[in-house]
């Protein structure tokens, strides 16, 4: 129903703080876009701009062909779910869900029909007469979702909706939100700092840092072809490992002390350039014997299904995820084969990727 387009949008607060700078982004109709970044990166501000809760101070924001810069929040056809749920404490669950429809002048019968339908979809029918303070966190979350979806808005905005839930519930709700997107067939913009949520839910991920977009892409693109060290570090658990070194062999190999690894694509004529090599925690194989790095095991951290190994390689401590059948003990030396088709390479000073531009 709506394409959301940012054209060089900026947001500067009266105190001079620039929350967003020169943001250009197009969110397609029915797309699920996740804004990902650490706190203070401008992702919530971006969401508030879409909702009209804050004013755009530079550039233009479009919904389809309508300029939205000066349209107030209550005249925009968007719904929003908040981290704290923001249910109206003085209203019953029914009234909470119905409120948006009432404000838009829907007929009483239509409101009742839609509220019942939303309640059935979210399995909160028995709770309709309760007050928010009588509900559990997960139930409140459902009511907040119900309040948004009952309006059948052009865009569905979610600001860290799962952050206040416990871990098990969070994963269950993640699946429900994904299902919701498929049934509602409307544009979703979802803000989170949780990379796992982003990777699970998104059609496209927008990684942001200090008000600037770092990379836009599908989850696979973002994970496999990060454009800089910030994006590479933000996704992956445990995070990606870095080794500082230089290019050798006319740019075909990475060298640091005794470590020498082939690169997925050679950087011709750049031998001797200082670079940063990125190896994801899971991209090692203790059994294979080619492209090996070796070092002393400094820590063994079992995590149930796998174990994390801290390995000291040429003065740097790297963390790898390996199967739990590997018997490793602290202080032992270990050799691990690196999947060099998946390593990343970054400029050592700017942090920009040398493989993907």
């Amino acid at each position, binding site marked *: 129903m709506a394409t959301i387009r940012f054209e060089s949008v900026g947001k500067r*607060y*009266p105190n001079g703080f620039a929350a967003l700078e020169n943001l250009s982004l197009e969110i397609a109709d029915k797309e699920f876009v996740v804004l990902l970044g650490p706190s203070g990166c401008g992702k919530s501000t971006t969401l*508030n701009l879409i*909702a*009209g*809760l804050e004013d755009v101070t530079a550039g233009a924001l479009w919904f389809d062909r309508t300029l939205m810069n000066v349209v*107030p*929040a*209550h005249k*925009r056809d*968007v*719904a*929003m779910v*908040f*981290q*704290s749920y*923001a*249910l*109206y*404490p*003085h209203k019953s669950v029914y009234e909470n869900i119905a*409120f*948006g429809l009432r*404000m*838009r002048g829907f007929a009483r019968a239509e409101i009742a029909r839609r509220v019942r339908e939303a309640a059935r979809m979210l399995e909160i029918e028995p709770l309709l007469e309760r007050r928010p303070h009588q509900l559990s966190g997960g139930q409140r979350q459902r009511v907040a979702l119900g*309040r948004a979806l009952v*309006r059948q808005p052009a865009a569905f*905005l979610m600001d860290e909706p799962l952050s206040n839930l416990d871990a098990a519930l969070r994963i269950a709700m993640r699946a429900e939100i994904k299902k919701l997107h498929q049934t509602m067939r409307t544009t979703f913009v979802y803000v989170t700092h949780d990379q796992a949520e982003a990777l699970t839910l998104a059609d496209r991920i927008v990684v942001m840092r200090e008000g600037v977009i770092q990379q836009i892409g599908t989850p696979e693109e973002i994970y496999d072809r990060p454009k800089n060290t910030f994006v590479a570090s933000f996704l992956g658990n445990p995070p990606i490992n870095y080794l500082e070194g230089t290019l050798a062999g006319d740019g075909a190999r990475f060298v640091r002390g005794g470590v020498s690894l082939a690169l997925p694509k050679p950087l011709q004529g750049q031998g001797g350039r200082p670079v940063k090599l990125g190896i994801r925690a899971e991209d090692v194989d203790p059994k294979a014997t080619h492209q090996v790095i070796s070092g002393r095991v400094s820590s063994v951290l079992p995590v149930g299904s796998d174990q994390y190994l801290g390995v000291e390689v040429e003065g740097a401590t790297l963390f790898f995820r390996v199967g739990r059948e590997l018997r490793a003990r602290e202080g032992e030396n270990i050799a691990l084969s690196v999947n060099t088709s998946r390593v990343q390479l970054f400029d050592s000073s700017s942090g920009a990727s040398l493989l993907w531009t």
Partner: protein
Amino acid sequence: MTRSSGIGRSIFLFLSSTVFLIYLLAPVAWLVSSSLQRDAEITSRPPHWIPHEPTLENFAAIFQAREKKVTYETRRQGDPATGGYIPSTARNLIPSMWNSLVVAVSVVLLNLLVAVPAAYAMAKIRFIGRSTSIYFMLTTRVIPDIALVVPFFLFIRTFGLLDTLGSLVITYLAITVPFSIFILVSYFESLPDELDKAARVDGCSRLQTLARVYVPLAAPALVAVVLFTFLTSWNEFLLALMFTQTGKSQTMPIVVASFASDFTISFAFINAAGVLAVVPPVLMAVIFERYIVSGLTAGAVKG
């Protein structure tokens, strides 16, 4: 050991709260009791806490005094209740109560009208000079009223409002609005910002957000504001003394005080007037009783 100290503690608490209660209630009890006595009995020693000859004549005198013009010559005529004396301003008492009520209710309503939107804006809308305006408003209340009396007087005279109820409403607003806003700002700030955002996304304009979400949630703070402004206006003396001159605009505290500076003091008459003066605040307290405790701690806990 612990048991006996627990009992000791209970006894101590019981005794001290009894003493405190007596301290609070004794003046009120004496006011009520003496309003039912004649002057002669009031001045008897030891005082009679329970009237030996209870009488409603003082109250009758107040209501009859309304029609009487009392002069030096006529002040002794036919009023047995007051021991023969009634103050020359007695006929102003009932109209002055009405004046007080009109002023207090107007001040309460205008306070809400001004303070509620102002407090919402200061608590929830970011604008340049937001915190400055809050501090500026509060600093105006650091100035004692007595320092403002002359400027107020000149202002009121220039606008030709001397001896009108309007002069009181305007000046009482100047005194009470900053406090009302302060109480409400801190309460609104304690309500989460996301409620404001949720309401606006749900289709409320700013004003609707205020009316449909914040006002219902702020009931305890609103009650605190209503009580505070009503009592301040009802009790105010200094400014009323300056700006009012005749029964047309005099409020109850002024008229009651004038009884004591008349030809002769009639204790019975003053006490009966005092009882009448206490009635409206007590009624307010009874009506809003269930909100008062939460209102006094407004802002301390989340809604």
